[in-house]
């Protein structure tokens, strides 16, 4: 059985946020939901400032607080390490969201149909796009996955439930890497099987110095960072995020 993990090479990341775009397109996430997010951080006072970039997917922790607190078991840990959300069972209590130290959960505050960037039914939009079909949603996102056969992939299913990064479970199922990994122009994101000693993630973890975010909280994340350093308490985002539903 595979044991998936991700390694993020901060020496390669340039903060372009292509991974954020790729994730959004692949998973059909609604407005202001960033399953993959890249911090653009600044430390110090001008002119002695330091820039750093920190991609933050879901950590798919081995001791996941979100799984522990889910009252109905909609959020669960798969044997292959992915922490998945069954969108058929979720009751939308948002307990996982408040318990996550990393802030990776997104709740559908409104119906996802009403929450995309373009009003696809609008006649002017239809004209501009030459009547292109409404946002293409990969039908794979509606299927059941894993030996447990539960529906855990993609976003935009219904309002009133929580969704988060799935390590692209629907892609992993057929042997592909997550969308963010495949689209990174600097090859800063690496995904693979820890049980395979020859996989790149195993090699990197073995050969390089790695660290994990908020390790001291005992969550045992499956996302390892190479290079860079954990954000200091002085680090702040260069620009405040303006995306709010």
């Amino acid at each position, binding site marked *: 059985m595979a044991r998936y993990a991700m390694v993020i090479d901060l020496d390669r990341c340039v903060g372009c946020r292509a991974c954020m775009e790729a994730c959004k397109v692949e998973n059909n996430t609604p407005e202001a939901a960033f399953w993959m997010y890249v911090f653009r951080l600044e430390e110090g006072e001008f002119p002695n400032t330091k820039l750093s970039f920190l991609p933050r997917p879901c950590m798919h922790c081995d001791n996941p607080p979100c799984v522990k607190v889910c009252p109905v078991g909609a959020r669960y840990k798969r044997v292959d390490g992915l922490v998945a959300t069954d969108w058929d069972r979720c009751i939308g209590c948002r307990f996982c969201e408040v318990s996550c130290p990393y802030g990776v959960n997104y709740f559908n*505050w409104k119906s996802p149909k009403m929450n995309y960037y373009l009003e696809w039914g609008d006649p002017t939009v239809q004209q501009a796009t030459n009547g292109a079909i409404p946002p293409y949603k990969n039908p794979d996102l509606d299927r059941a996955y894993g030996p447990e056969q539960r529906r855990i992939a993609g976003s935009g299913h219904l309002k*009133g439930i929580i969704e988060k990064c799935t390590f692209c479970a629907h892609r992993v199922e057929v042997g592909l890497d997550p969308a963010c990994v495949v689209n990174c122009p600097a090859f800063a994101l690496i995904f693979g099987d820890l049980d395979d000693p020859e996989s790149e993630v195993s090699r990197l973890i073995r050969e390089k110095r790695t660290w994990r975010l908020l390790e001291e909280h005992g969550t045992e994340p499956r996302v390892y960072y190479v290079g860079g350093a954990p954000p200091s308490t002085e680090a702040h985002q260069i620009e405040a995020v303006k995306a709010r539903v």
Partner: protein
Amino acid sequence: MATRLESKTLPYGVGHLTVAWYVVTAFLLAILALGLYAYSRQLGEGEIVTGMRDIGTMGGAPWGIYIAFVVYFVGVSFAGITIAGMVRLLNLEHLRPIARMAELLTVITLVLGAFSILADVGQPLRALINLPRYARPMSPFFGTFTLVIAGYLFASLVYLYLAGRRDAAIMARQDTRFGWLYRLWAAGYTDTPEERERHRRTTFWLALGILPLLLTAHSTLGFVFGLQAGRPGWFSALQAPAFVVLAGVSGTGLMIVIAAILRRALGATRELSIGVFRWLSNFLMVLTAAYLYFMVVEWLVSVYAAPSAEARVAAAVFRGDYAWIYWLSAVALVASFVILFVQYAARNHNLALAVIAGLLVNLAAIGKRYEIVIPSQTHGTLLPYGEGLYRPSWVEYSVILGLIALGVLLYMLFMKVFPIIEAPESGEVA
């Protein structure tokens, strides 16, 4: 309307519908209607109509006043059954007149707590089915759902039912529209010494059984917050006991207010004597002192050596965006304690002052619940997301007001069907 219902021989205003009652009921129904309308908007459009948003990149708080009021309502329910239980367990006979109004407060506020949870979840129908079907003991919500909403509510209903049989039997002998209800409730109660003795024994053990359930239930509610290591400001061993104590404070305070209102409305100066208020005031004084102790300890620990994220939350609470709520609540609690202590020391209990203290502690409890729930979400992110903002919307205020109106309505309706104060031991209608 001269019907059988208006018989003035029925005790404590049962069946006696005055103009004032109709006016108040109409007003409450209007507020309830507003709450229902607001909730319908939420069901239709989603929780986007509230002020809640995601933690992190959205800089919001996914848990808002719905959850704060869940905690408040369940907290108030604590005192009701505790007081009723203490009457039995400690033989506080002079408090017996408030036992039923306390039990009713528990039952109604638990129902309001359950409705607040349903108002908060994104998929309420799913919650109703999936919680009984899939609920996991490892989740702190399991305790809230099973012990508090289901177990505790049922136990309190049983208590209310059994304690009311004698009055039901008395009412069944009167000529009223609800004879069928009273006979069903009384279930053949005969006021013989053996039956009274058996009833005494049953309610004693029932009270003894409810108290540990109560403590566990309130502690699990505290654990909902106290076990979240990822939420600075919440993660603390103090949460569980502090929740239990503040629950006692708010509930006892509300009991004083309710008893004072009923004393005036029903003219029950004999049953609801100053002695009753003296006991409640002293009990409230001790609980308030205990909670103030918790607040001082919490403050000291935060300002002495808090890690950076906790320090950020503490700064927001003590000096920043939430300072006004925190300090107003603290001042209200201290003022209330001073009022109660002076009365205790001078052995001179004034009803009006007791009511003021009761109101103050409830306002403080609401403020404190808000201050526990919100700041750790907007200002307590462990990754450098920046500050957040939460402002409740009209939908949230309306739903909460609607729920409070529903509670008052249910209370008033009960009082018109069943005597809110137990008939005296002699068995004669007052």
